[in-house]
């Protein structure tokens, strides 16, 4: 009896599958695979992609890789098996995600990378990239100007096993390290976390009460650092963030945060969805890499910006 039930269940499953394959007038399905949903920036990226896909008349589903390439691989296999027609993809790791994209290519499902790139020029149909490294080069230049090329500063790193952490840090240092009078007195990790950043900053301030600037790998850490600085009566210290989150945009307009980098997740996600739409329409010649500009946001241009983008 039990075996019979199982057989019926299997039959229903297969019937369901074959039904799926024969669709033609059903809406096409788009899988959105993002590295993590534990960070508002990526939530916004995924939601915008889903919204745009819906506007264009497609079904979509968001998959959360939880910063884990193995889980990401499962998502790709599931998406390919359940008949998705395109994948809008935010890779977890430049090297580790390549094989997943190649799997999709083999199955002739187009993949459009969003924000982060993969180390392959052939696997993805197109890569819409926002380059953390060059954004931090720009932030580094502003940092040098704001501190007038001298002083002591602190760097708060993100999660030390995350490649974004180091892209941002390296971009920043490629500029700032050329100025010998700018001295980094502490470089600590606060895991992209607001609470951790506040605690680490409180401790650093005990060891180095005389600092002039803080560079943070994301806005959440910048907000935490600001709270520690304000509590210690050191609101004159210039704090730099990265992301362009709602809290950060408000903090820049209030003069609490010196600057942040705006990466335009809305533009990236909408572009990726639009590319998928054009692909379904028959277009095949997409740019392999499409860089989306990153803007530095500070007091001088803050009135043009809102959370995660420009005011409309």
């Amino acid at each position, binding site marked *: 009896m039990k075996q019979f039930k199982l057989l019926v269940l299997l039959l229903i499953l297969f019937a369901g599958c074959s039904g799926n394959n024969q669709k033609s007038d059903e809406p096409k399905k788009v899988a959105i695979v993002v590295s993590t949903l534990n960070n508002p920036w990526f939530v916004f990226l995924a939601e915008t992609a889903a919204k745009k896909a819906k506007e264009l008349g497609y079904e979509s589903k968001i998959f959360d890789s939880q910063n884990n390439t193995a889980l990401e691989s499962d998502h790709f296999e599931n998406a390919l098996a359940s008949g998705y027609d395109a994948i809008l993809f935010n890779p977890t790791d430049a090297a580790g995600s390549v094989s997943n994209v190649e799997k999709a290519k083999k199955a002739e499902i187009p993949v459009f990378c969003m924000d982060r790139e993969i180390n392959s020029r052939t696997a993805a149909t197109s890569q819409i990239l926002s380059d953390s490294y060059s954004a931090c080069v720009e932030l580094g230049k502003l940092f040098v100007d704001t501190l007038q090329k001298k002083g002591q500063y602190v760097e708060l*790193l993100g999660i030390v096993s995350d490649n974004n952490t180091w892209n941002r840090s390296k971009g920043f240092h490629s500029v700032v390290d050329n100025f010998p009078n700018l001295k980094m007195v502490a*470089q600590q990790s606060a895991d992209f*976390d607001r*609470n951790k950043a506040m605690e680490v900053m*409180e401790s650093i301030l*005990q060891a180095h009460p005389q600092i002039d600037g803080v560079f943070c790998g994301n806005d*959440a850490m910048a907000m935490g650092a600001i709270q520690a600085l304000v*509590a210690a009566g050191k609101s004159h210290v210039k704090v730099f963030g990265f992301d362009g989150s*709602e*809290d950060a945009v408000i903090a820049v307009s209030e003069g609490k945060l010196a600057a942040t980098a705006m990466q335009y997740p809305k533009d990236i996600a909408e572009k990726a969805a639009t590319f998928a739409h054009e692909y379904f329409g028959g277009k095949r010649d997409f740019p392999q890499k499409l860089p989306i500009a990153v803007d530095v946001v500070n007091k001088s241009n803050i009135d043009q910006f809102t959370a995660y983008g420009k005011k409309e």
Partner: protein
Amino acid sequence: MDISQYRSKLARFQSSIALFVLCLALSILSDKFLTPENGWNILRQTSVNVCISVGMTLVVLTAGIDLSVGAVLALSGAVAAGLLKTGIELPSNDLFVGFTLLGTIVVGLITGSFLGFFNGWVITRFKVPPFVATLAMLTIARGFTMLWTKGYPISGLGPNFAFIGTGWFLGVPVLVWIALIVVVVAVIISNKTAFGRYIYAIGGNESAAKLSGIDIGKVKVLVYTIAGALAAVGGIMVTSRLDSAQPNAGMGYELDSIAAVVIGGTSLSGGRGSIMGTVLGALIIGVLNNGLVLLDVSPFWQQVVKGLVILLAVIIDKVNSKAE
């Protein structure tokens, strides 16, 4: 006094000795360590972990474990912050429910208590191992936190709410007062009440406790409820301190809390340990976190050092318990 007696005396004070040695070493290595301001920093930073770890100690004493405290902390804090910031709108009959500060805190605490109660219920009613039940709750509470916050932080909660996290009362930070009250109440409960004795009895030998007429299910459910409530207290503290409920708040706090319990000499197999040991354990972790940053030790090495300290604490504990 023979050696084994001497040893067990020493074991009772091992956490205090470790904390003292650590503080001594750090004061020699950094002249910034032993200042009043840094002392308050450490106490403030430790207060959240102390609250969570007190609940964890009670759970571990019953030979259980609660992996959901970090996630419960996040959800309780987010619920309180969301209600304070926007209230609840009931679109069906155009009803808007606003919340007072006290109201949001109470609802936050009820949220945590309920999740803890649910843990205890699943564990006792269906005999699910605590590790599995609370691991499931970790995921469930994280999911609800994402649903409630939609993945974005809830910020700008106002100066009254921020007083809990940043204010001072009689020359001591409010956060430290909260931790102090939690510890005092927990010490009294665990040492002076029948309920406290039951907790130790269950962890020591569950079948013996059952035979002596203790309602094991009831005690366990209450213990997990307390752990949930204290995680919620931690959630309110963190949210108030940051003036913001972060969707990923409390990530990994269960590990810090288990570490505090273990370093404090409470046995993971239950029945043996104390609240004060855990407080010392939490302080050791807090001092270590602070000291490693003061000395600007590389973040890579910090992880290694913290892991080694936990390992050392457990090994010393094992050696001592064998001696007894």
